[in-house]
């Protein structure tokens, strides 16, 4: 790190950090046992929440200079926010982390490949659903055309980091481009109408996880919801916000607020913990913008995870059944720590006939997926995943259920890496619930039908 860069970063810290929030940390250390990187580094204070806050404050106070080690500490954070739930002082660590990353990345020269990756994805892909569809369309072409088989047989994937190689194997079959663009915008309930909701489809969820989005809509219909799916919505901006691209995140937040204001609904439903936790903090993101503050607050009040609305509508009291099996649940950090939703998924799973729910040890500890963490911090991510898979296997579960696409891919990756594909599967909770509902009620599986249609 050269002098000019150090000066830039230090100035950015002074400008961007919320000093009052930094002061709120009393350094009591209660956060330490909750932090996955503190544990995995063998108790390295540098990689703990308390240490990171001290580093941020040290930079602002001028006690230390920016350095590669300081940057590494901030980069190594998963942003899982487990420390927030155990912090008696109520420090909003997630926000401090965003500010710190903003300060580093808006003023720091990244390595060229990382910069290209970030630039391309953050500015040109995620904000535009069409491009997301285009890009994942390419992935679909790759999978269907035989290129995937070819690539695997000639070993091109060996050129990529180990986690990406495995990731390539576990990516779901992508639906066709035409299917992705043909989403209805208004859906009527399939039971007595109880609520009118809007569905936040999410950029990633509505492309490679489109089947899960379809299942979400179906579940909401069965639960008695009229559903609006605003066409003008876009990516939530979480990946930008968490990676120091705050201006871009704000722009996307405003677009979403407008899109959902028109829908006039009771709730805005998400099925991705990561998106939900970011959406629910739009009021904070836009707090300094008088024109948007109140509109953002109204938006935030309506955000609800699919599992929370299902429990509210007593979906867990309906007939649900699956073939006999043990099931465990991996918390989505942002669903638990950001949206405080963690009882509902368990409640829903426990109510399914023939399912034995076994809680995994440290189920609420991050799985190491964390946005693009498993790509940019591959080594630590895999170390965390290894621990997670040991715990998952202890439960003897056939199915690991998750509530966020990132966690889902990471769990699939874990299963692949451990060579357990023949005895263990990972699914999104809505896919599992829909199957349980249709199974119990003698309905032909809408997922299988859709899958067949999508592949034609």
């Amino acid at each position, binding site marked *: 790190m050269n002098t000019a860069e150090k000066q830039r970063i230090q100035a950015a810290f002074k400008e961007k950090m919320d000093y009052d929030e930094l002061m709120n940390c*009393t350094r*009591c*250390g*209660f956060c330490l046992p909750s932090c996955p990187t503190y544990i995995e580094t*063998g108790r390295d204070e*540098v990689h703990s929440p308390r240490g990171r806050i001290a580093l941020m404050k040290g930079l602002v106070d001028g006690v*230390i200079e920016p350095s590669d080690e*300081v940057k590494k500490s901030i980069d190594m954070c998963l942003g899982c926010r487990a420390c927030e739930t155990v912090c*008696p002082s*109520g420090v909003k660590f997630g926000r401090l982390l965003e500010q710190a990353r903003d300060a580093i990345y808006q003023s720091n020269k990244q390595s060229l490949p990382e910069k290209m990756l970030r630039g391309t994805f953050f500015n040109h892909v995620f904000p535009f659903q069409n491009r997301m569809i285009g890009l994942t369309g390419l992935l679909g072409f790759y999978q269907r055309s035989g290129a995937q088989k070819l690539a695997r047989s000639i070993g091109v994937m060996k050129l990529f980091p180990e986690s990406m190689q495995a990731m390539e194997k576990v990516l779901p079959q992508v639906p066709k481009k035409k299917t992705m663009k043909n989403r209805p915008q208004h859906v009527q309930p399939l039971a007595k109408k109880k609520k009118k909701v809007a569905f936040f489809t999410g950029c990633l969820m509505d492309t490679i996880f489109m089947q899960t989005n379809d299942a979400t809509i179906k579940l909401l219909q069965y639960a008695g919801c009229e559903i609006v799916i605003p066409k003008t919505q876009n990516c939530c901006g979480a990946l930008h916000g968490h990676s120091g691209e705050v201006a871009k995140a704000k722009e996307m937040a405003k677009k979403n607020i407008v899109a959902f204001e028109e829908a006039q609904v009771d709730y805005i439903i998400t099925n991705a913990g990561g998106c939900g936790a970011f959406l629910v903090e739009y009021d904070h993101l836009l707090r300094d913008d008088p024109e948007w503050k109140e509109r953002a607050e109204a938006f935030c009040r309506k955000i609800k995870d699919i599992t929370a609305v299902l429990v509210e509508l007593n979906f867990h009291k309906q007939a649900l059944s699956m073939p006999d099996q043990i099931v465990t649940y991996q918390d989505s950090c942002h669903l638990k720590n950001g949206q405080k939703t963690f009882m509902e998924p368990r409640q829903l799973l426990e109510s399914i006939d023939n399912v034995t729910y076994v809680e995994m040890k440290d189920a609420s500890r991050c799985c190491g997926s964390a946005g693009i963490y498993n790509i940019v911090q591959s080594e630590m991510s895999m170390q965390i995943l290894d621990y997670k898979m040991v715990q998952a296997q202890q439960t003897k579960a056939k199915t690991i259920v998750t509530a966020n696409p990132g966690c889902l891919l990471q769990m699939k990756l874990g299963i692949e890496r451990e060579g357990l594909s023949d005895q263990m599967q990972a699914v999104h909770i809505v896919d599992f619930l829909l199957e349980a509902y249709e199974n119990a009620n003698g309905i032909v599986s809408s997922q299988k039908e859709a899958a067949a249609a999508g592949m034609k």
Partner: protein
Amino acid sequence: MLAKELKAKLQDIVGAENVEDDNASLLAYSYDATARFQAMPDAMVAPRNKTEVAAIVKLCNDHRIPIIARGSGTNLCAGTTPASGGIVLTFKHMNRILEIDEENLTMTVEPGVFTKDIFDTAQEIGLFYPPDPGSMHISQIGGNISENSGGLRGLKYGVTRDYVLGLEVVLPNGEIIRTGGKLAKDVAGYDLTRLFVGSEGTLGVITEAILKLIPQPETKKTMLALYHNLDAAAETVSAIIANRIIPATLEFLDQATVKVVEDFAKIGLPTEAKAVLLIEQDGAPEVVERDAEKIVKLCKENHAFDVQIAKTDEQAEQLMTARRSALSALSRLKPTTILEDATVPRSQIPKMVKAITEIAEKYQVTICTFGHAGDGNLHPTCLTDARNTEEIALVEKAFAEIFEKAVALGGTITGEHGVGMMKLPYLHLKAGEAGIAAMQNIKKALDPNGIMNPGKMLAIAEKEKAGDLQ
């Protein structure tokens, strides 16, 4: 900065991966849980065994480099801030429970074991390790021993000191000694075990400890007594003890504290009460039942407007956990919390509580009070802002007066947090000049070069200060 040659020698001893001196590491080991104290070390070193500790200590003694042994850095007296630079020793590698002896009821541990793990491991086999400092989930036993940590069970079960039977210590000259043993009785010479317990890392480095375990109490009962004023709660504390009942826990919380704790824990604490007592009794079922009845009666006689009994163990544990979070939770109100732990004989609790209120008013500072009322150990906590220098000056004056009052009532300046740097200016109030001189002589005899955690507990004339470091 560490001289190159010294760094190389340290790396030879512990391996290159166990010596850190980049600026992130130095900052991360520059603080503990004490507000307003911070100082940078020159390196962080993580030894893997006692032989390595001895080699490090010898090297440092030869070169006059300060050594600060640090657990998780949760102490509240600026006990592990590297005031004169030097080397911070951490014990991440020395974190094993070495033995559980069910015949002698002891557990032998390395310094880096978490307090909670000691408690849990004992509990699994029907035994009990009572000391439970507020930070027990993350504090390490080496730190607990060095600070002689207390906790919520001090009243009936005592403190860390009462559960340390023997120690292995690396002396400042690099010699390794063993004190005490798995012995109920041992009068062979000075009681060095007791000397090292609570010595705040100023006399040597603890590398192993034999802890005493006791049978687990059969059952327990936990309750909250609610009051309309502080005095009535304080009077109840004296009344319970005067009636020959020693509860396992007898905690006092004022309204402001209850409110912030509830804000964090959300377990339905009675935020309408002006003062709350958290009381727990354990033991044989018939004893617990009888004591609980008496306690409820005494609370009501002393004007408690309500007494609530925890219905499940879970609920009881929630209450205790909530209480442990009190200090940190108070910082929800103001950026800086400065806490003291002046302690008085139990009978003087009502007088002390009253004095604290008056002193806070006199200096116009906000002081919330909670603490281990049952053992006379209060935690008056001042809510302030370290950036407001004028107010900080008043806070310091208020605390000086609180210390004086505590000592006048037959108490002490610190019951369980230690002296460190924070209370060093007030030690004379309790120990007296001759007392301090006696302590200084002990220090000089064991650590003539003053390398062990210099600047803590005793203001000793520091000799030629760490010349090699510069």
